[in-house]
């Protein structure tokens, strides 16, 4: 390998051999072509059924990594070769992460669309439905009510707590709250469900308790820390000059916060709240524990079991009836509904942040 350098000991690294421009692109295309040829031969020889496109890309990429390393090592030396190899690996890591995302969205759309487009899907519940048909209206109503109540609980508490941390909190208590808010973002969702269950089972002395409001409490435990974190970041962005100007005019501190600080940061806070809703609306485990499942409509948060969209997906999958394909179709359609809601919330949140964010001139 070092013979190239030995042969021309006086050439410095700036003028030493380099692979031609765009050579990495051509090598990549070349290795894909080679691997496609190999897989095509396997296909034509009849030893495998079907042309394996995933195998082609994966094998071709591995081939590229080897080829670029060897070629670059021969022409450019070992340090440059390592650099090229790592560039290829890092890029591959990114592509690898995108594959499941694409695969999930694709399969959900393809499997979910047939039942999703049934006319009754959004207008009926599953009551007395055996086999195909019925809809998710009961689950959508349940999800909206449970998540809405969770938002009503979490936003005031979370917002006030973040105001405390940014505007008032000094010393140990504020540090402890900041620390444990961060820790709380890592609580497993099922633990939040178990907590809500334990709380209400003790309160009402009912060891089999299931109702929608308990689900809201469980979701609030998960949602509050997210709201606090995001609101805190947004409140910190408000320039101090605004607060000082208000104080200089003799405005009390609480009015300064309500009339100056909050309006300035409201776009960011709304974005944070929407992202936190998007995060808890897909939670299954806590609702399975405390809200339970049913196939009927229930508009009462405080009584009886309440179906929610994620739990609908799970139960349709887990308790398949005689016509199992109908249940699986509905599970995928429910998943599609859920993904659409989450993506809409995410997209809307980013748009709000983009449109209304204060122009800080940075």
């Amino acid at each position, binding site marked *: 390998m070092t013979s190239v350098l030995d042969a021309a000991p006086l050439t410095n690294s700036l003028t030493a051999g380099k692979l031609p421009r765009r050579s990495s692109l051509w090598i990549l295309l070349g290795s894909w072509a080679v691997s496609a040829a190999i897989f095509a031969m396997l296909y034509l020889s009849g030893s495998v059924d079907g042309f394996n496109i995933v195998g082609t890309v994966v094998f071709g990429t591995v081939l590229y990594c080897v080829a670029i390393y060897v070629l670059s090592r021969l022409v450019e030396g070992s340090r440059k070769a390592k650099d090229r190899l790592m560039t290829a690996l890092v890029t591959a890591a990114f592509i690898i*992460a995108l594959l499941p995302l694409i695969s999930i969205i694709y399969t959900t759309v393809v499997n979910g669309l047939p039942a999703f487009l049934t006319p009754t899907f959004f207008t009926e519940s599953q009551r007395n439905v055996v086999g195909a048909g019925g809809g998710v209206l009961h689950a959508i109503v349940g999800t909206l009510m449970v998540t809405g109540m969770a938002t009503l609980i979490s936003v005031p508490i979370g917002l*006030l707590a973040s105001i405390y941390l940014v505007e008032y909190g000094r010393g140990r*208590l504020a540090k402890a709250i900041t620390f444990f808010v961060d820790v709380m973002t890592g609580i497993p969702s099922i633990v939040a469900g178990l907590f809500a269950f334990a709380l209400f089972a003790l309160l009402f002395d009912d*060891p089999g308790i299931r109702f929608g409001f308990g689900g809201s409490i469980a979701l609030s435990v998960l949602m509050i820390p997210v709201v606090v974190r995001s609101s805190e970041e947004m409140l910190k962005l408000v320039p101090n000059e605004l607060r000082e100007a208000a104080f200089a005019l003799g405005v009390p501190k609480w009015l300064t916060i309500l009339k100056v600080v909050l309006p300035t940061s409201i776009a960011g806070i709304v974005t944070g709240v929407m992202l936190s809703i998007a995060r808890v609306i*897909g939670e299954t485990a806590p609702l399975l524990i405390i809200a339970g499942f049913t196939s009927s409509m229930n508009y009462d948060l405080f009584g009886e079991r309440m179906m929610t969209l994620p739990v609908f*997906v799970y139960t349709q999958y887990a308790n398949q009836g005689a016509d199992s394909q109908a249940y699986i179709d509905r599970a995928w359609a429910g998943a599609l509904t859920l*993904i659409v809601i989450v993506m809409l919330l995410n997209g809307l949140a980013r748009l709000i942040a983009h449109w209304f964010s204060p122009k800080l001139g940075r």
Partner: protein
Amino acid sequence: MTTAAATTIKARQRPGDRIFSSATLIAGGLILAVLAAVAIFLLVESLPAFIADPGEFSGDTTNFWSYVGPLVFGTIYSAILALIMAVPVAIGIALFISHFAPRKLAQGLGYLVDLLAAVPSVVFGLWGIGVLAPLVQPFYSNLVDWFGWFPPFAGPVSGTGRTIFTVAIVLAVMILPIITAICREIFLQTPLLHEEAALALGATRWEMIRMAVLPFGLPGIISASMLGLGRALGETMAVAMVLSPSREVIFQLLTSQNSNTIASNIALNFPEAHGVGVNILLATGLMLFVVTLLVNMLARTIINSRKAFSGAN
């Protein structure tokens, strides 16, 4: 943070001020109270499990600890496997976004990875069982045929692909976004002068990353991995749907008998549980809570020990 001068002039406290500031104080205190309440209520409700009758436990287990043992093993085993797969890829993605991708694209690419975090876990479960398990099953048969002498790959192979290894892959995908997000933040905080100094000495881009970025980001990578570990330990639905569980400690990765995890065991058995069975499940939940709390506290302490990382979440 408002800067407090050494000689602050005390503002007059109006009623509005008092009400508002105590309201914020109560809200802040409430968060700590909730965390304490989670621990207390779970503890109170799980006490009966520790003194439960041997007959209350399903299978041939006679006390709580032999019941929860295999579950703890399954939880940690699957989470560690997921971590081993996710961390290198996450570091790669974070490096790609922070140092390799074109500047203009970097933000959009970051959003793409964040979208993965927006997918609900139950959808991951459906995908794992409907797409991933059938996809990887042929590989598993080959692995068992060729490498069956290696204990973790010992047979008989699962016919459905619903093994702990598949679960670990799904978990790895699910924890990728959080590890990536934190690593990315930290890599971007590498002092520019360090990077430029390395490049000026003639380092290639990879050598610059080895010399400047990775040493600087190491504590961040460690704590990001631990946060990911916390997520993987507590993940419920994906495991509950994909895994074909059993009640023993099993090291084999590719068989149809796999140790269940705590969270998935709760989700599978809670709807039908009654009597002391509920308390037993709550007690396993308490174990899970304690473990994840410790992991998260350790991770946050490491992050906080370097103040510059506080923006990372």
